[in-house]
């Protein structure tokens, strides 16, 4: 097993943590590791999964662009790799078993996107930890479904500012806005809290995979959301932040994603990301 630690306890709860070997980190290594670990989870007799922070957050080992192997790959190759990664995370969140993220370290960018595929997120309440999707600073939008899941989780009104400003939040603040569901004071309690939730929620699934799920606040067709969408481009223009083109792409991908189903939204997210990646915007 490369890439993920895999530890199963007596209650059949498996704890996986991304622990990539030394050397360059790329979307390919993450994708391959995810594929292996999810295949094992799918074939194993498992009561639930804890996905925990690794030894070292990979945001500190590779930039978002490096993760995507830019500029070595073609647009099509990047798109196809993203599609493969997204399929793996869909498999994880639709495993049919509860999946809980246990966040004990910084969780930024792609790492937090993986945690967003969990059904429940517990974090250590350390004020120095940072949580969020800051891709906008690199001229990108989230690559692993993070944009879409944030919109489906929080609704357009709450998700858009977080995405457009690339906000990094302390665990406490992240819990307030809904990125984190639960805080523990002591890192030693993290795993046990995660496992407690698994035992209490054996039938857990993503809210958006349940029948009749509605995005909080409504789709772009809802009159209040429509009103927000009408003025959003003008607000971005007036602000005229250096990251405006990226913020515009985030707005478009988020709104378009909220008009369709999750799988289509994930494709739309990739298409906007690939365009940004190759648009020559500054890293």
């Amino acid at each position, binding site marked *: 097993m490369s890439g993920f630690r895999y530890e199963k306890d007596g209650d059949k709860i498996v704890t996986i943590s991304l622990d990539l070997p030394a050397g360059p980190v790329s979307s390919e290594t993450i994708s391959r590791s995810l594929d292996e670990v999810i295949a094992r989870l799918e074939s194993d007799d498992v009561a639930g999964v804890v996905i925990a922070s690794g030894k070292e957050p990979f945001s500190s080992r590779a930039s978002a662009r490096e993760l995507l192997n830019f500029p070595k790959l073609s647009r*099509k190759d990047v*798109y196809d790799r993203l599609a493969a990664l997204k399929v793996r995370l869909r498999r994880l969140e639709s495993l049919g078993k509860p999946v809980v993220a246990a966040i004990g370290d910084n969780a930024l960018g792609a790492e937090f996107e993986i945690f967003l595929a969990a059904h429940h997120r517990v974090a250590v309440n350390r004020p120095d930890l940072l949580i969020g999707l800051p891709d906008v600073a690199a001229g990108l939008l989230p690559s692993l479904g993070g944009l879409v899941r944030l919109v489906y989780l929080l609704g357009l009104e709450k998700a858009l500012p977080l995405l457009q400003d690339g906000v990094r939040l302390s665990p406490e603040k992240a819990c307030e806005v809904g990125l984190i569901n639960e805080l523990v004071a002591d890192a030693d309690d993290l795993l046990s809290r995660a496992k407690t939730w698994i035992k209490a929620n054996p039938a857990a699934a993503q809210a958006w995979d349940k029948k009749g799920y509605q995005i909080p606040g409504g789709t772009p067709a809802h009159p209040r959301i429509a009103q927000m969408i009408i003025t959003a481009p003008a607000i971005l223009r007036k602000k005229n932040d250096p990251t405006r083109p990226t913020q515009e792409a985030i707005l478009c991908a988020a709104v378009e994603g909220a008009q369709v189903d999750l799988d289509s939204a994930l494709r739309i997210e990739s298409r906007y990301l690939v365009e940004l990646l190759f648009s020559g915007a500054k890293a």
Partner: protein
Amino acid sequence: MAREAYIFDAIRTPRGKGKKDGSLYEVKPVTLLSNVLCDLQERNRLDTSQVEDLIIGCVTPIGEQGGNIAKTAALAAGWDEIVAAFQLNRYCASGLEAVNLAAMKVRSGWEELVVAGGVESMSRVAMGSDGSPNALDPETSINTAFIPQGVSADLIATLEGFSREDVDRFALESQRKAAAASEKGYFAKSLVPVRDRNGLTILAHDEFIRKDATMDGMRQLKPSFEAMGAAGFDAIALTKYPQLKAINHVHSPANSSGIVDGAAVILIGSEAKGKALGLKPRARIVAGAVTSTEPTIMLTGPTAATRKVLAIAGMSLDDIDLFEVNEAFAAVVMKFQRDLNVPDEKVNVNGGAIAMGHPLGATGAVILSTVLDELERRNQRYGLATLCVGGGMGIATIIERL
């Protein structure tokens, strides 16, 4: 000498299954249309400032297809600001009405270059979601003896004596012809792939075709309109057609047109404008006609419209080499052939909407491009496209390949 209207080019997107699992579901209607406008521009090295009007058929012009989808898409495509544009709705005839209207504009001399076509994303903007007093206002519904189209199609089948076996056989033939034509590349000339913002292909072929369709498989499907008929619409139909004792519900999803997404556009102009822009006419629009027939049976318009357009053109049925009769329902085309004694070899030779789908507002332009491509492939001269239309209307257009 009378001014003529010429077709310089005709292109269309492939038709995607009009459901969430259809390939074009992720594509916004404005993008579907603006992309095909860009393709038309590119293929013809078209100076868009020369286009005077853009006419786009769209049958459910609300929400993402609302406002004026034609002008919005022209702007989104980066077309010159001088291009005027509007959306029209003549139900299923919309795409062909756009063509006929463009031809009238050109022939009148008031305009020299017009783009006509249609768009419909049935996966994103559901058919009927725009509401209509014909069904939703009881007073109107009662006074006009409204019945759903499917019951009308079953009424035609009953009056004509078409059995379930007959309409299924027609449908199977549509599938076989469409699969063969698609495989042999007969649609390649007018088909432009739908691509994403990176140029990556989203869909390049008509994905609704079922190559593996069989009579046995189709026989399993329940009639789509039996319940509606039983609820009372049969009674309304029988009041108008007292010679019948009952309606035989033969239409199912397999022998009715498919719900799909798609767009099509046709570049139409005068001879002088074509010369000035270096555009070679592919066809002349000989004549166009609309009419209307008994509204409860609703779908018998193609016969009347065909007779009318032939009269306008001073032509006879024998002059027409190929017919495209929209396969809204199998019985519609079968009745058309029986009424006018048109042989199978001339009708929908590459399949139709039963196999490939009926993107409501776009279909008229789609089938006109199909008949033009086939006239060119066969070196034949005259083609006629016709559709049945809500409210009892019918539309028809004759083109001459050049």
